[in-house]
């Protein structure tokens, strides 16, 4: 055999041996996570009954307020808002207002009159988990034109919705 042949065969032999020594193989797996849209809100309970029953002579009756309840919110979305509505409108000349303290991210709209049409109460909420007890304040007011109104209840619904 020629020298070139010996060198060639030696090279092939060493190459094969090297490949044998560092043989490697791979296989794969896929790991996947689906993160769903999360918009959760809860309230601490019902406020005390509100009653307009005092007045200063010469003035409209005094408002009654309650700030004993709070809400908690979690969302993983951006640009969310909290809206509020009641299940039926208030009697004539009687109004129910609500004021939500904004969570750590967001802006409160302040006192908003509740009706069956949802109103924006807090806007600009983005990816927050705030359970620190954001205060809800209800204010019941009535003018003398309302007369005597029998006791009644309203269900207030707070909803997290996409901001405009």
């Amino acid at each position, binding site marked *: 055999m020629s020298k070139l042949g010996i060198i060639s*065969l030696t090279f092939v032999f060493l190459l094969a041996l090297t490949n044998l020594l560092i043989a490697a*193989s791979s296989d*794969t797996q896929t790991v*996947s*996570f689906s993160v769903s849209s999360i918009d959760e809100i809860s309230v601490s309970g019902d406020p005390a009954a509100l009653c307009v029953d005092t007045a200063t002579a010469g003035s409209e009756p005094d408002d009654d307020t309650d700030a004993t309840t709070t809400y908690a919110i979690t969302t993983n979305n951006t640009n969310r808002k909290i809206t509020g509505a009641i299940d039926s409108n208030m009697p004539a000349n009687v109004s129910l207002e609500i004021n939500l303290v904004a969570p750590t991210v967001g802006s409160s709209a302040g006192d908003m009159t509740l009706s069956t049409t949802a109103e924006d109460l807090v806007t600009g909420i983005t990816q927050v*988990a705030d359970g620190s007890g954001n205060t809800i304040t209800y204010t019941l007011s009535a003018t003398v034109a309302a007369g005597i109104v029998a006791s009644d209840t309203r269900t207030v619904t707070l909803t997290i919705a996409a901001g405009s």
Partner: protein
Amino acid sequence: MKKIALLTMVMLLACVQAQAVDISATGGWTETIDASDLAGGAGTNLIDNYESAAAATILEVYGTGVNDWYVDVTRSDITWHGDFTLYVKRISDGTGSGWVANGIAYIAIETVDSDFFNGNGDRSNINVQYRLTGMSVSVPPGMYSTTVTYTVTE
């Protein structure tokens, strides 16, 4: 005659090489995160970490030779979130000839190869488990995926 002997040796080596070590991985892990994963309902964050089933992936190392083999692990992100850290650990030795060692504590799967475990001889039914940390409401809704690659070297 000498030529025939040398050619035969080379062909034998090629045949041996064709039986080189190989690895197969079956299974995987898919997890859905939703409101039920909040730590305590509205006002709380998502649970930070999640663990797969005990045998989310089953590995088999076969075609081994006389030398020890080593399994590395890495990941290639398809859609991922920077807050996530994915871990893997070996929870069984599997069965077969030889032995396996290391890899029984969680190690982070990085985008570069990391040593996972090693052994000798053919082994099947090596179960591995995954863990993900870094979940929170800061992670936008969507699908997040990564490809985990196991490489065996002998």
